[in-house]
């Protein structure tokens, strides 16, 4: 049962800044460039090049196994032309969110392990979406990356409450999201949904992230949510990082069928995750 001493969802979210932090100026400039009649790939590239850190990240990612281009890209304009403007914006979004939660106290969470798990989930979701030929496969990377971001909000904004939730999780041996639900009246996916709505993220992301623990309540399993749910399941089973709950969450019964998975596809998927994770970590964590 929910305790009156725990913070309500609205209070947690209202404490988070609506700004996207240090990358906000670049995002605004790209929007301005895109709305200009003189917009070109080189003008988008020039807007990005004003931020040296972002430029380095973009080129490193573009030249990595994540995209697997055969030729070496040396300019931002080349990278934007091959990757796509929307995908570059997604990269900026991902970087800005990781930076936003930097500096969390190490006693509350191992951030390197948290982001390793989240990046692996994003990488898996992107590969699955590409294989399924879903539109905007790169968006699934962002969805996977953010699937547990609600947990960071809880650690950051209500450390005492999150400690009690964790104690309940350990004492009663139940999935962490169930402990969150019982003690707070909502879980990390509810927090993530509210946060992404506050940041005006696309509905697609809000739904895919917000439903990844809740698919059992839906009569129709959306493939977007199934991609994120299965990615979380698989990378937890592969023991790549940890976002709080070390055990593999329950797998919704229809997920395997909805995604059209086979044993052979699973093997290829796991190899591709291993292959891409090193470069993804270098860009987003070790840069």
């Amino acid at each position: 049962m929910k305790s009156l001493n725990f913070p309500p969802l609205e209070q947690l979210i209202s404490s988070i800044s609506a700004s996207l932090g240090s990358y906000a100026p670049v995002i605004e400039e790209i929007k301005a460039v895109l709305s200009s009649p003189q917009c070109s790939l080189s003008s988008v590239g020039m807007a990005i090049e004003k931020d040296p850190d972002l430029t380095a990240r973009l080129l490193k990612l573009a030249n990595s196994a994540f995209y697997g281009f055969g030729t070496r890209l040396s300019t931002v304009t080349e990278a934007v032309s091959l990757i796509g403007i929307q995908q570059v914006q997604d990269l900026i979004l991902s970087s800005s969110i990781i930076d936003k939660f930097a500096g969390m106290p190490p006693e509350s969470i191992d951030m390197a392990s948290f982001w390793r798990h989240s990046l692996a989930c994003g990488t898996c979701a992107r590969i699955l979406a590409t294989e399924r030929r879903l539109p905007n496969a790169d968006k699934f990377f962002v969805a996977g990356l953010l699937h547990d971001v609600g947990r960071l909000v809880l650690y950051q904004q209500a450390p005492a409450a999150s400690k009690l939730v964790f104690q309940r999780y350990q004492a009663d041996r139940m999935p962490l999201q169930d402990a969150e639900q019982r003690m707070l009246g909502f879980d990390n996916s509810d927090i993530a949904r509210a946060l992404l709505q506050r940041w005006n993220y696309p509905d697609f992301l809000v739904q895919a992230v917000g439903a990844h623990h809740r698919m059992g309540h839906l009569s129709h399993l959306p493939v977007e949510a199934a991609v994120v749910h299965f990615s979380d399941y698989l990378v937890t089973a592969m023991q790549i990082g940890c976002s709080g709950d070390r055990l593999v969450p329950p797998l919704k019964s229809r997920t395997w069928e909805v995604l059209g998975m086979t044993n052979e596809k699973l093997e290829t998927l796991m190899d591709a995750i291993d292959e891409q994770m090193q470069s993804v970590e270098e860009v987003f964590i070790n840069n």
Partner: protein
Amino acid sequence: MLVSVDVKNMDGMLLLPKGCELTDRHINILQAWGISEIVVESGAGPEGSVDPLAKLTPEELVALTSELKSLFWQPDESNPGYQAVFQAILKRRVLRGARR
């Protein structure tokens, strides 16, 4: 040497399918497309064709199965997704030398 992952160009066109034997001609074609790296596996010798789980004694298999099942909140044997993922991580543990 066998191609272990489909090789596609930037437009998603299949250049070499998974499982095909890599030849010098294929390498020339890949270079022409600007592809410098692909994933291959060595020829299927006696080691490559053996199920990695067959390397374990029955006792080792039971112990490893039990250890890996404890990583799951709900080891649901009736769920095909669970079955496939469990078998895959079991094989990976054996291939990565995690024998106990």
